[in-house]
């Protein structure tokens, strides 16, 4: 029998015990973004023909919340366990490095999708539901949660103190998610920033996710899927290698 189901259960229990902080608070934050940006820009910006700015914002905000929470889940769980020392309870049992990865990954995806779904439900009060290709949205939601969840595991393992994790979050995750076309189309950017945005994997996640809502996107969803999928595989490989070698977990 494997320890994977229990480790996954513990990961879900961990964030659910503080559901107000881990689920409700990010949903409220996303609602505030929607309220403020839609109020300030709704009459000035139209990105896609026939789609209001508020509707345009919805998938971006859903995906941004999903990604940030997927990252926060695995990274905060690991850093807390390392600092308090209770990581030892996961390292002593016969849990393989792959099971370890899978449990933290699934926990992150679950929380990310839960928060994303909550944000989406909240936005229904501001914009009518629109999901022209739901399967595309689902694929990008899972892929996004997986990618940022994996990045969270890497950050959680690499960081030795909360400061380092905060730096990772503030200087890598936040710029990647904010500068990814959540609030705008990258076609509206100057050519330099347009080019820079195309190197941001989060842009492809949001653009592909948005395609599922409107059937319209800045780049082809196939390209987005390829880029995001490649990034996920590459990051997973790095993460699995770290775990297999016991990097910063087993001396």
């Amino acid at each position, binding site marked *: 029998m494997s320890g994977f189901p229990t480790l996954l259960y513990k990961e879900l229990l961990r964030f659910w015990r503080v559901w107000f902080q881990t689920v409700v608070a990010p949903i409220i934050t996303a609602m505030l973004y929607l309220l403020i940006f839609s109020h300030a820009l709704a009459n000035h910006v139209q990105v896609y023909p026939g789609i209001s700015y508020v509707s345009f914002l919805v998938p971006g905000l859903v995906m941004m919340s999903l990604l940030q929470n997927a990252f926060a889940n695995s990274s905060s769980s690991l850093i807390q366990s390392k600092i308090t020392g209770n990581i030892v*309870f996961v390292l*002593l049992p016969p849990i393989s490095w792959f099971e370890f990865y899978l449990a933290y990954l699934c926990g992150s995806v679950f929380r990310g999708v839960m928060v994303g779904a909550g944000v989406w439900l909240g936005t229904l009060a501001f914009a009518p539901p629109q999901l022209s290709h739901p399967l595309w949205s689902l694929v990008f939601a899972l892929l996004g949660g997986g990618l940022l969840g994996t990045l969270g595991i890497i950050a959680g393992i690499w960081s030795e103190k909360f400061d380092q994790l905060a730096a990772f979050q503030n200087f890598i995750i936040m710029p990647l998610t904010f500068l990814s076309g959540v609030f705008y189309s990258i076609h509206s950017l100057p050519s330099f920033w347009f080019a820079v945005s195309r190197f941001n994997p989060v842009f492809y996640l949001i653009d592909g996710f948005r395609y599922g809502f409107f059937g319209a996107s800045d780049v082809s969803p196939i390209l987005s899927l390829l880029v995001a999928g490649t990034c996920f595989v590459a990051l997973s490989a790095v993460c699995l290698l770290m775990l297999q070698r016991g990097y910063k977990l087993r*001396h």
Partner: protein
Amino acid sequence: MTVAALSVRGLNKRFGSLHALKDVSLEVAQGEFFALLGPNGAGKTTLISILAGLTRADAGEARIMGHCVQRDYRQARRLLGVVPQELAFDPFLTVRETLQIQSGYFGLRHNHVWIDEILEQLGLQDKANSNMRALSGGMKRRVLVAQALVHKPPVIILDEPTAGVDVELRQSLWQFIRQLNRDGHTIILTTHYLEEAESLCERIAMLKLGQIVALDRTSNLLRSGGELHLEIRLDRAEVPVALQARARILGERRFGLHLASAADIEPVLAAVREAGARIEDISLRHPDLEDIFVQIMERT
């Protein structure tokens, strides 16, 4: 031939310039109560970490019940329970959840009967539904012991389980561990309370600076101390002249002497009488493990 509960051969580990373990080899038979002693920094925790798979050895091999802790880690970890030295806990969980989750990590998801038994044996049943944060240090230590036992491992390592623990818990803990040993579990213990090791353990290994400096049955080690210790309190501060060269001052009007045998007591008493002193208190004792430990650490 029965396989050893624990076997390490040629174990080496370096942390930068620190050579934490130097070619350590030892075997512990199934059912033994074994102590691993040494001063701080001797390498005890490093050795335990290697056995538990928390640290990887640079060279050498460690086996639990014949299973290599690296190559066959799943089986080795299933057979081993470790009570870590650090008082760690998950603040999100209650005591019962902590044990259920730890059990699940070993693939045991319907382990309620055994969990109830260890809760009772360790006096934790009243705290089963309390959050871990609400427990005292001693109670948290009991939960650590319970976590190590949750998968009924045949080999149990306790890394200073009684550090900072009150007398009552210490006694009930050892009673429980003794029972586990009688039931066939192999117990490996590290402790700074040498009287615990002396009374509980059949064999002892002493480590110093990453090397084994003594490895023998407890009774043999105690015999190796040889000399008897005589302590005398006189009615005056001065030690009789005839004894001054051999006496160790232990306190005000108290001094001690090493004697080869009980027959050497009479010349000491004669020297006291000759000096016109009066004995207020006297005791004679065999060397205990602490004396042997100090001798070995000073000698090596």
